[in-house]
């Protein structure tokens, strides 16, 4: 019994799909942000798996892991800014549900 690249890529695809569903199906803006983070985690898992099993593994430069680190931190920053924007919109519009957002007026 062994675990190889395809297992982690399948896991990554599942995580991405679940995040995709949450992003399309949830009403709360915070839940949409959390679903986006799930999708990003799925992509990062694929990057780290390619670092471990893929062609870049032999180069000793860990480009996939470095890219995953960049993506993780910038994703966290995006989540932080998104959460702040949700709070600010709530103060103005009194709703966090994306269906009710009307940013025109």
């Amino acid at each position, binding site marked *: 019994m062994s*675990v190889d690249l395809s297992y982690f890529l399948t896991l990554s695809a599942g995580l991405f799909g679940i995040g995709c*569903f949450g992003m399309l199906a949830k009403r709360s803006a915070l839940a949409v942000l959390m679903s986006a*983070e799930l999708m990003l985690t799925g992509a990062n898992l694929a990057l780290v798996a390619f670092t471990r099993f893929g062609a870049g593994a032999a180069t000793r430069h860990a480009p996939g892991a470095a890219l995953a680190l960049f993506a993780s931190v910038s994703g966290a920053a995006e989540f932080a800014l998104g959460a702040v924007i949700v709070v600010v919109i709530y103060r103005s519009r009194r709703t966090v549900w994306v269906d009710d957002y009307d940013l025109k007026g």
Partner: protein
Amino acid sequence: MLESQAVLLSGAGTGAITSPALVAVSYVLGALLLVGALATVLLRTLNAAMTGLVGTLVVAGILYMVLGGGLPLVLVQVVVVGAGMGALAFLSLRWIGSSEAAASPFNDQLIPAVLVAVAVTALLGAVTVAASWPGATASRVEASLWATLTNTYPVGLATLVVIVLSVAAGGALLLTGRIPERSRSAETASARPKRRRTRPDTTA
């Protein structure tokens, strides 16, 4: 059968994980990851969904450790992304302070969302199964990740620092700035059904 571009490899074999303990851990962590992700999107209260998300991110960090992704990456994933994001989501709910905001219902597009998610997952699964990825034996990534970040990607690292500082400054300014309350008339106007705009008659 999809074939990726041939890459000259210095390693040999695909370097699959064969240790029974690590294989078992990988399967358990994979199951926990999917359960946490499902909990994040399926639970109807944001507090429970946040707990699911933080659990998912922490499990992902442990999975990175199993994959030898490097200690900096694991620390960033668990501490900065997992714990930080959970705290931030919790603080957002406190700032909002509304019981309505703590709920996380589904919208009307549930069926299309399921269809799109299944289609995306199936496409990714098909690519995963059909592609023949060039493989190599992993070298000691852990020792070289920080060196890679500082030596190979110094501009990227500097950009990341700038992004994080900008987000901190921008977030603080947004939160402390004066937000104009939406006027009652604007609220009632948006609550009213939208009337069709008629083009002004220019023939006269």
